[in-house]
């Protein structure tokens, strides 16, 4: 591995995680069932009531947040549990490992968000979108930001005890600014057809992504070497 560059190691870690996920399908199966379960709960509780658009935007992001909380912590926890973390530490340097895992988490959450949103739009009555591109931009930026924050918290939590309960507790205050902004952008997408209507929100989301990734880059070394 030492012969590879930064990008080479990142790609190798990403390939390793992807192929191990595709072999076991642990996260994929669990997340798919999670989606089906939560959507059916929403359908049962709505019955035939009509709900305002803001509730739809909020509910969609509640679903995505908790799906991320149940699926994304595994990237680092599995390394600890299988004991492979020592080998990984021996064979590579720290930062590319983080970016490999981040890439994996971003793609996993993007796929999940796509499936969730399409299912939500198909199944839940009253979910109508005016600005499709606004929705896509908001979902994309929100997902990348959420995955970035979840990855660094996931790395942190892998070293602690009582991980399952601690993970959402630690993540929630960190991602709350992101969630509030992205819910507003999603609401705008459902009411306003113009793409530029949520430009302020895009800027906040983008700067959030930059800030959280810069901080992760700076502190990941300390978590990894501990």
């Amino acid at each position, binding site marked *: 591995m030492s012969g590879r560059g930064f990008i080479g190691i990142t790609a190798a870690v990403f390939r390793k995680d992807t192929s191990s996920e595709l072999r076991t399908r642990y996260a994929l199966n669990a997340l798919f069932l999670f989606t089906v379960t939560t959507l059916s709960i929403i359908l049962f509780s709505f019955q035939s009531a009509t709900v305002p658009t803001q509730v739809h935007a909020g509910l969609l992001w509640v679903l995505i947040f908790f799906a991320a909380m149940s699926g994304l912590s595994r990237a680092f926890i599995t390394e600890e549990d299988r004991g492979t973390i020592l080998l990984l530490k021996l064979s590579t340097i720290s930062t590319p490992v983080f970016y490999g895992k981040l890439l994996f988490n971003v793609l996993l959450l993007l796929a999940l968000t796509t499936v969730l949103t399409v299912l939500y739009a198909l199944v839940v009555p009253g979910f109508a979108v005016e600005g499709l591109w606004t929705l896509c931009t908001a979902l994309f930026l929100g997902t990348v930001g959420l995955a970035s924050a979840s990855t660094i918290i996931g790395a942190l939590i892998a070293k602690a005890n009582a991980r399952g309960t601690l993970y959402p507790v630690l993540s929630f*205050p960190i991602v709350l600014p992101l969630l*509030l902004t992205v819910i507003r952008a999603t609401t705008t997408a459902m009411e306003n057809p113009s793409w530029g209507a949520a430009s302020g929100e895009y800027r906040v989301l983008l700067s959030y992504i930059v800030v959280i990734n810069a901080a992760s880059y700076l502190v990941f070394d300390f978590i990894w070497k501990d």
Partner: protein
Amino acid sequence: MKVFQIILGLWLTAVIVCAYVFPIVPEITGWYQYPVIPGLEEKARILFFHVPLAWTSVVGFLVSVFFAVRYLRAKKLDDDIRSSSAAGLGLLFCALTTLTGAIWAKFSWGSFWNWDPRETSIFVLLLIYGAYFALRSSIQEDEKRATLAAVYAIIAGVTMPFLMFVMPRIIESLHPDPIINTKGKVSMNSTMLVVFLSSLAGFTGLFFWIYSLKVRLARLESGRSTEGA
């Protein structure tokens, strides 16, 4: 240290007396009078306590982040003691801010809690403190606990500006509730401003006094636990 305590005690007593005794009048005739702030009237007096408390809880957070960074650079456990002591005090002041803010909101806006942007940011600060201590209590080894807590404090620290500065700007456009802070400062006269700033200084002094006590106590406790082991 003794002199500092005595001065601090006298200072805060003076602030409390000034805050409650000086009359609020529509026409200012003497140096000791406060102007009427429309919409606040007598309720303006809580300004002298609520805002310094909020300020102090943020100072506690910043001190905690500062020593978290120092811990990661030098790996001295004493910095972790300082960081967690500041966070503990920050939590106390944050809870008091939430409480006084809720009381104020009840009498100003009619309900204890209405998700004003400022209320949201203080609520998230409370959550961050809670999560920080939940993380600390879940790890046994000292070094590991110190490192992970420091990392969490830093990550929380970099996302705070979004809540403090960005969210109020964005949400304001939807909810035109007056944000008390800007409104209050505009209509303060010089007497009010002097008492307010003295209160700010007094509470900051109070914070650092309790903080030094807490750090000394934590050092003694950590020394005792290593001797016992």
